[in-house]
């Protein structure tokens, strides 16, 4: 036991004596976690959520285009700024604005006519940055609703649209029965517009409204994206620490220390077990520090089971330690092992959903990620933090992580070169 504890103490002394290692292990996940948490929404109560900038090119200069501009500017999701066509096109091309909409000349009249099918539809051009397709779709949706309301309001409020539509209908080759029906509709619209008290019609609107409710731990608890980002970054940097565990073991061999250790009357269990124990301790410490920071600075809480949270942290720490031993067992030299291990770790982190949530992955990839232990750690941490789930939801992630640790550890013991060079 004296040797085991001395070896663990030595690892901790060396780790905490290396400022760069400590910064990488503790400060880096906090910094990057803070950044990602902010970018992906921060706390749900944040007031400064980014409004999407949209450039508005008015080539009509009529009342409909002006009303449409005012309506779009009232939308909480958009920041609409008027612009001329060429500057707007240039801004989108340079990535300074994601979307620009161009309202063509004569839009108001044509749209109103088109409303009753008596004229071709005018075209609103949407200029968008190809890297912002999602934003373009969102603008199209908002635009559709606002155009419908603005155009119908205009159409129902003035007789000119009805009169001109009726004129066009006379010359139309439409079926007599349909022509009669449309004439009746125009009569009704004219009557609706001339009825006292209806002049202020708001036009046709979307016949529903939505009530958004984020499903978090429980009602009244806002989503806190820092919970996910801090978990993700803790996972990433713990895995990097795992690489250092493996490289450290390979360096022992390179520096002749392995000869000294093997010359002593120590079992393989003591030699590798002490390394795993020190790595697990550091891993638990990283998770503790990172989540403590997140708790006090960003209000991240363990909304679910605390026992489950500790269980996931412990199981992932053990898995990380075993992963480090695996790197030491498979790697031939520190230099060769570092490159391969870094690549494998980055792939594991990426597929775990630590950077971006795994539901954004293609469905086939989501299936594959279930074979990645870090994915289970991420799911477990999410479940115990912002999802607020009970310990039963932590059991499967813990089991998968422990099983991974056993497999990694077994391969490491099997493949490890015990002989001194």
């Amino acid at each position, binding site marked *: 036991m*004296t040797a085991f504890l001395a070896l663990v103490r030595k690892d901790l002394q*060396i780790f905490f004596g290396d400022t760069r290692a400590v910064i990488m292990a503790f400060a880096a996940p906090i910094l990057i976690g803070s950044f990602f948490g902010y970018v992906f929404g921060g706390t749900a109560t944040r007031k400064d959520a980014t409004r999407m900038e949209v450039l508005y090119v008015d080539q009509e200069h009529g009342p409909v285009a002006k009303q449409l501009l005012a309506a779009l500017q009232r939308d909480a999701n958009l920041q609409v700024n008027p612009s001329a066509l060429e500057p707007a096109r240039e801004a989108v091309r340079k990535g300074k604005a994601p979307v620009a909409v161009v309202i063509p000349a004569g839009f108001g009249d044509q749209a109103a006519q088109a409303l009753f099918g008596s004229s071709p539809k005018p075209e609103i051009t949407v200029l968008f940055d190809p890297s912002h397709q999602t934003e373009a779709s969102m603008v199209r949706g908002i635009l559709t609703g606002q155009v419908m309301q603005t155009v119908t309001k205009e159409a129902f409020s003035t007789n000119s649209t009805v009169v001109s539509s009726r004129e066009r209908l006379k010359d139309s080759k439409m079926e007599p029965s349909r022509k009669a029906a449309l004439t009746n509709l125009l009569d009704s619209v004219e009557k609706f517009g001339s009825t006292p008290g209806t002049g202020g019609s708001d036009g046709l609107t979307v016949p529903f409204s939505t009530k958004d409710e984020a499903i978090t731990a429980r009602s009244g608890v806002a989503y806190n994206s820092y919970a996910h980002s801090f978990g993700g970054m803790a996972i990433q940097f713990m895995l990097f620490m795992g690489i250092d565990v493996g490289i450290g073991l390979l360096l022992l061999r390179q520096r002749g220390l392995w*000869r000294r250790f*093997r*010359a002593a009357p120590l079992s393989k269990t003591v030699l590798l077990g002490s390394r795993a124990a020190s790595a697990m301790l550091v891993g638990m410490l990283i998770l503790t520090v990172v989540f403590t920071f997140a708790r006090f600075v960003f209000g991240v809480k363990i909304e679910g089971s605390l026992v489950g949270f500790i269980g996931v942290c412990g199981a992932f720490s053990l898995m990380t330690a075993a992963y480090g031993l695996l790197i030491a067992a498979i790697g031939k030299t520190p230099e060769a092992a570092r490159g391969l291990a870094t690549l494998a770790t980055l792939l594991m982190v990426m597929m775990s959903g630590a950077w971006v949530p795994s539901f954004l992955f293609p469905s086939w990839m989501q299936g594959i990620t279930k074979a990645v232990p870090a994915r289970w750690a991420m799911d477990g941490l999410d479940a115990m933090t912002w999802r607020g789930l009970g310990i039963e939801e932590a059991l499967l992630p813990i089991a998968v992580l422990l099983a991974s640790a056993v497999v990694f550890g077994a391969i490491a013991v099997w493949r490890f070169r015990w002989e001194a060079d």
Partner: protein
Amino acid sequence: MLSAENLKKAYGSLQAVDGVSFRVGPGQVFGLLGPNGAGKTTTIGMLAGLVAPDSGEVRIAGHYITGDTSPQKRRLGVVPQELALFDELSATANLSLFGALYGLSGAAATNEQARVLTLVGLADRAKDKVGTFSGGMKRRLNSAAALLHDPQVILLDEPTVGVDPQSRNAIFDNLETLKAAGKTLLYTTHYMEEAERLCDHIAIMDHGKIIATDTVAGLLRQAPVSSFVLIDLVANDFANLIEAAALPGVLSATLNGRQLRLGVQRMDDLPELLRWLLSHGGEFEHVQTERPTLETVFLHLTGRSLRDA
């Protein structure tokens, strides 16, 4: 105290050690002398239980090393060729760790640390990080780390590589102290001067085999000449080298610039040789003699120089 019987070890097609046998008693220094790659480090690895031999056996005080946790390992102290220390830790922290590997803790560990640090002359640097030490100081600490548990047998693998003369002498003094204390020392080196100075018995290794083993005096008797005569000629146009080599009593003759080097069987022939030289265009300005060394023996046995091998 330490015996090796017919040790063999191959790495693929390379036979690193091929039938090495020897015995070393208490209070003796046994030297394994040979060029780099001769199999010295692999032999030490097998003696220390670090490398499993393909065949052969090792005994310490009559006992085999059986398994990783064999108690016989406590009788051994291993000084690796590399500076097997943690630069990030202090000398005391290093020694604390290496002592703990052998179960040392508490006051006993502290006392042993102080003892070995004093022995190697580093007591005043006990709290300093090893990374701040000179190469020679690290070498001394490297040796000290193997002495903490007071082993009876100490295996030293090239313990003076890359050290300054002062530290080398300090290490020699330490080893002589240990020898005087009755410890069994096995010392590998490719420096023949070190082997001659320290070792009671020497085995010369080459290509994994012991090609000669004896006391220093016994090995030197295997040299083909009793002395070398080094003659600095006045001019560098001496043209009778072949004739000089054929003179009675001369076993070898080489010319390096203006220096003529003659290997002779008996020093009694020297006056006659010098007279012959003067009469054959070999006017000289300085003469000195040199005794053969283990280098000479190695060259004689293998046809190669120790340093070139």
